């Protein structure tokens, strides 16, 4: 539990009075100026409150408040301005920088102890609640992810060839999304979005649950009619996801829906189901598309053997598996070592 009070004042007399008042209940830390205060804040994570003078040498109280704002520390640690200051503007500036209360010198110790003690209790309570909420959100995310993975396992049971396919697609999506995002500013996405896309890629083939066994597990090439039915796994995937929107985070749901529907679209418009062209296809669906094709090439099928890494890369670059966005292809080629290692 946070049980230290940091007293910041250039005058020893003022520090001693405050220290004496709080010594029984708290560990006391003292700083003679703002720079010492920031050092103590950086090296102690048990500070329950800061009692801060405004006018000091080296770095003044405003400087300390500014730094605590920049580091975000001000949100969790209450700062009391203890000052002989009466300039309204300066006190207002202190409040605007997040000071929780202003206490004028000379202060009455009993009142001061009550005011500071009450606020410390409030902050402790708030910080505890925040920890509880964060824990629950984390637990909820884990449950959601495990539900998504359970669904993917169901698909794997139906589609005997898919075994490790889903795991590899996740790995490839992560590598390719990161590369595209780093190489092309127009496709930049922050880390947490890429993580959501990776989770969403798990469900790209969820629609295969709705394809009959005779087609899904046919020991040979599909006829034209059978292939038309197989293509429906994209739209059927969306139908299934529409029924279960609540099992995942809203963003992951949206990514999943888009990837399930569009991971067979092609850059030149010759893919399915909607025949989208170019960047009308989302970058995440484009990335899962190339990952899906690469994984199919390096995996054995009843009607073909597994191609080696070099052959698979060449076939993708030569357009033998459809046309891809040249920028996504560049990212794919730039990530070749990572992808090969992933094998």
């Amino acid at each position: 539990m946070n049980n230290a009070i940091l007293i910041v004042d250039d005058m020893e007399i003022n520090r001693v009075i405050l220290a004496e008042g709080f010594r029984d209940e708290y560990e006391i830390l003292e700083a003679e100026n703002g720079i010492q205060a920031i050092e103590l804040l950086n090296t102690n994570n048990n500070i329950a409150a800061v009692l801060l003078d405004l006018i000091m040498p080296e770095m003044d109280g405003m400087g300390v408040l500014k730094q605590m704002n920049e580091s975000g520390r001000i949100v969790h640690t209450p700062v009391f301005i203890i000052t002989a200051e009466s300039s309204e503007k300066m006190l207002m500036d202190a409040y605007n920088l997040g000071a929780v209360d202003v206490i004028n010198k000379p202060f009455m110790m009993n009142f001061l102890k009550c005011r500071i003690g009450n606020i410390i209790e409030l902050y402790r309570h708030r910080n505890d609640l925040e920890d509880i909420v964060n824990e629950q959100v984390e637990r909820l995310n884990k449950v959601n992810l495990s539900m998504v993975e359970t669904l993917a396992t169901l698909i794997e049971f139906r589609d005997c060839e898919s075994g490790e396919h889903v795991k590899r697609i996740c790995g490839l999506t992560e590598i390719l999304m990161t590369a595209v995002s780093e190489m092309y500013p127009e496709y930049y996405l922050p880390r947490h979005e890429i993580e959501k896309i990776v989770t969403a890629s798990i469900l790209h083939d969820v629609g295969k649950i709705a394809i009959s066994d005779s087609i899904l597990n046919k020991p040979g090439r599909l006829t034209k009619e059978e292939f038309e039915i197989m293509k429906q796994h994209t739209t059927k995937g969306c139908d299934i996801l529409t029924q279960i929107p609540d099992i995942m985070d809203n963003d992951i749901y949206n990514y999943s829906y888009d990837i399930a529907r569009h991971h067979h679209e092609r850059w030149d418009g010759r893919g399915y189901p909607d025949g989208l062209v170019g960047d009308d296809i989302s970058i995440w669906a484009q990335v899962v598309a190339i990952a899906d094709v690469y994984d199919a090439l390096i995996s054995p099928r009843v009607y073909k053997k597994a191609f080696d890494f070099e052959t698979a890369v060449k076939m993708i670059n030569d357009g033998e598996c459809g046309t891809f966005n040249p920028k996504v292809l560049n990212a794919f080629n730039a990530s070749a070592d990572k992808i090969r290692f992933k094998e």
Partner: protein
Amino acid sequence: MDLISGLGELGVNTDEALARFMNNASLYERMLKKFPAAARDAKALECFQAKDYEKALAATHTLKGVTGNLSLTPLFKAYTDIVALLRADKPEEAEAMYMELIPTEEKIIGCIESCQ
């Protein structure tokens, strides 16, 4: 005569100060004995003589806080007015008031130092 009753006769609000020091008289006396050095170190007189009113403001502001916390009431009241005058851009009036304060401050410092 002990230090605390001596200061009481000079207008220092020792009851208020003792409450602030959690009724710890020896701690109050220890801090009182630090006041003469604190007052000299602030160098308020030098700042006024050099017409450096920015530094004079910082010095008198610090002494306002310290005299307030020690309940050196006559000094605290004067320093409060001096700070206000400096803020109001009236340095000559502030300086005149500081000159008036000096004998009182010397009496209080003398009382503290006589009990060392």
